[in-house]
């Protein structure tokens, strides 16, 4: 199996995998990351989302050959990446404003979709720092939640947007 150099959460990681291996499996099994989760393997639900060059990407349908040389950020490294961008030291207690908003608004129910939701929200606020309710709904429409936490997600995004402004 070939070797790939991946840039994950600010570090270069060397992994051995077939070129067609979806990024999700490599992140989860080779690199032992816990953020992205398998929800469908079809790119439909968003549970597996990671940031690739700041974009919300479905890691379950993205082969690792396609992300060589790109900056991959998972939920595991989101806070530290945020701190680094702000020039602040990162501790295990550091939280991205969205993570803090997610806690303050008590967003998770079962929690399974929340990796994808947070990644999707990071992408959204990157492109639209002050979204309206309707804009949030439309931007997040590609992420599925079965338990029904949508309203709390919307509130958390607005809360984080206000803090990040």
């Amino acid at each position, binding site marked *: 199996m070939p070797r790939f150099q991946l840039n994950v959460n600010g570090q270069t990681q060397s992994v051995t995998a077939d070129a067609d291996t979806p990024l999700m499996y490599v992140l989860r099994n080779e690199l032992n990351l816990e953020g992205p989760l398998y*929800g*469908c393997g079809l790119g439909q639900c968003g549970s597996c989302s990671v940031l690739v060059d700041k974009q919300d990407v479905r890691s379950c349908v993205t082969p690792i050959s396609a992300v060589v040389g790109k900056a991959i950020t998972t939920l595991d490294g989101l806070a530290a990446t945020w701190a680094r961008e702000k020039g602040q030291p990162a501790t295990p207690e550091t939280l991205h404003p969205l993570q803090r908003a997610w806690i303050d608004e*008590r967003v998770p129910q*079962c929690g*399974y979709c929340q990796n994808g939701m947070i990644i999707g929200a990071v992408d959204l606020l990157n492109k639209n720092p002050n979204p309206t309710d309707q804009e949030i709904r439309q931007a997040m429409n590609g992420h599925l939640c*079965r338990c029904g936490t949508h309203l709390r997600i919307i509130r958390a995004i607005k809360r984080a947007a206000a803090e990040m402004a």
Partner: protein
Amino acid sequence: MANVKDDRTFTRRDLLKGGGALIITWSLPSFVRAAAQGGQAPAVPGGQWSPRPDLLDNWLRIGQDGSVTAFSGAIETGQSKRVAWRMIIAEELDTPFDSVTLVMGDTATGPDQGNSGGSNGIYEQVEALRQASAEARKALLNLAAQRFGVPAPQLSVSNGVVTVTANRAQRATYGELIGGRQFNVKLVVTGQRASEMSLATEGVAPVKDPRRYTVIGQSPMDPDHREMVTARYEKRMQNFRLPGMLHARMVLPPNINSKLVRVNGFKSGSPPPGFVKVVTRGDFVAVVAQDEWQAVKAMRDLDVTWSIKPIVFNSGHQTLKEDLKKHKPAVPDVTTVVDRRIVPGQVTDVNRGNVPAALASAAKRLEAEYYFPMQAHGGMGPDCAVADVRAGEATIWCPTSYPAGASRIISTLIGLPPEKIRVIWRDSGGQYGRFQTGEDAGPAAAVVSQDVGRPVRLSWMREQDFESDLFIYPYTFKMQGAVDADGNVSAFATEFWSFAIDPRTEGGPLATIFAGVREGGPMRPHSVIPVGGGDVNSYEFPNESLLTHHLAPNIRVQNGGLRVPRHLPINFAHECFLDELAAAAGADPIEFRIRHIRRSIPFMGKQPMDVYDRTIAVLEKVREAARWQPRPAPAVGARGGARMRSGRGVAFVANYKETYCATTAEVEVDTQTGRVRVMRMVQAVDPGIVINKDVGRDVVESGTLHTVSRTLHEEVQFDATKVLIHDWATYPIMRFTEVPEIEVVWIEDPTVHTWAGGLSETPCTTVTAAIANAIFDACGARVRDVPFTPQRVLAALKA
């Protein structure tokens, strides 16, 4: 960070820090009482290997730092039970909420508490830990009494610290009093309840007077949230891994009514890289590989010949509503249950009066049919388990809702006795009733691990999770009713058709594949629910009947419990039909319901007037919170020419798990496309004491939204040979742009000093009817078949 935490290294012994001498036992009073009751410890569900429920130390341990560790056989189903339980324990122990850790669902440490489901967590299962906590507090006070040389009544306790009331300088923490040592207190176990198999412990310590609560009624945050949002949630099933673990995928037949003929090899001609082996067992086939993607590829590449039995499917989902009524031929050798009347004593107050006569002489007579289809669980996390089976012992991590029960199932498959099988619950996400005994990936993972002699993680694919799910039972209803000259209901007759429980498929999707897990046996009706969808009918009619038909399931899919599996469909039919009667009577829907609330017939052992006020209060509260202007339906513009029409509807359920709930929905109907948009819903909920208003509110809101999705979108599609749902495109669910605003209002009756159950189910029960009634109010169309797709709305508009 790797999550390689192997909790086999964590045993009860680890909690014993510093041996110390035996504590004085406090067992005599309770033990004497047990002896007086016959002397035998009650039969412990799960056999001898589960930690005994009659020993306090098996429920609670206190560390030297005062931290409290509680153990349960119950597990978290994704409805925030974990928060309420910690609060209840902290309350009874008088210890801070943050000091309590709850270890759930490990058969090595948690007493057998039966299955977690059917909203039994706060309603029943927690009572054991509640009582155990009260006993522990009493034991700690007695220890302090000895230490300080004063009688226990002269002590005060708060936040895990005991003081002499008259001299606060004399103080000791729980950690100082017992830290790390055993209580050695025996509890009186009153045995299992037949329906829920939960245990109640009845010791000598009284539980706290609710008027003295300091924790319950507050709103502490859920400590698991921080872990979840930072990718450190250690209990996530799918992130559990062991060193040297292999990966497995099942190769499932085209339908469960198939036999394995032969594994032919790989379509590509040779085993894919990383392939380890094919495991077969009866009709079960799985591939095992070194890494997960290799396992997926091997699964897709494996060529298997199946012998597909002729399936007695109904012709398809489009005709199931009618097929149910036609009593399709039974599967051979299975008893078909038809025309089952309610046995008096099982359900009260049905078949009263003379329905045929009342219908015949009615001023206004109505008849309508309703349909609730099969629906899928569709949890975001497909089923997954890790098993490590060795020569003499096995450990399985899986999302089962009944760990001790799972260990018995697995025992029959791998030939080890249950006491050598440790099952450890892990959280695979919202399951909504899917993973009951043996219905999760644990048994399959165990079989594969035993075969390959290595730890294995077995995961279901998304398409497998849909195709081989257990679907909620479908229902066809025929309602008949009448309104008298005064505008009151004079007759209310319900007839429904649904499936009996087929014991051959009762073990879940793999039961028929693992031969011998479930024996054949007579079919039996799934429980008959009183009209109204509550545990007791909410209303009182002079002439009333209920007739149920439980058919042999003649489609080869498997049915099981999905969130309010019986109450939701029945409440839908009942509350819609009542609404039709209200419209016929020209009455406001809420006022009409209040007029017919039960007031003279006993109410599940209670006098009706004991609960009458609570029943009325919930309807009045929703009326106020929804700013509901009394008037009959439909709205003024309903049959006008506007394209977009708005309306409101209401539905009510009394007494599911003793929670009362009234629900309104406001909808907008696009009469050109048939699309329904739910704009806002109000839930008025009376669950007795609200344990945690914030978390409780979240649970109600989430459950409501789940049910809106089911109401507008969800139906399992199938044809003559197979299930047709595979993914989120073929089984669409609600998305962000469709989500309504939800408002939750609590009724807090100061005379009620208990909490009820069902916050995760009772408010779901009424959602579908409220939306259907709102659609009628908006545009005059009665949609009687779930889901309310645009096609169905357009058809109802034309009718």
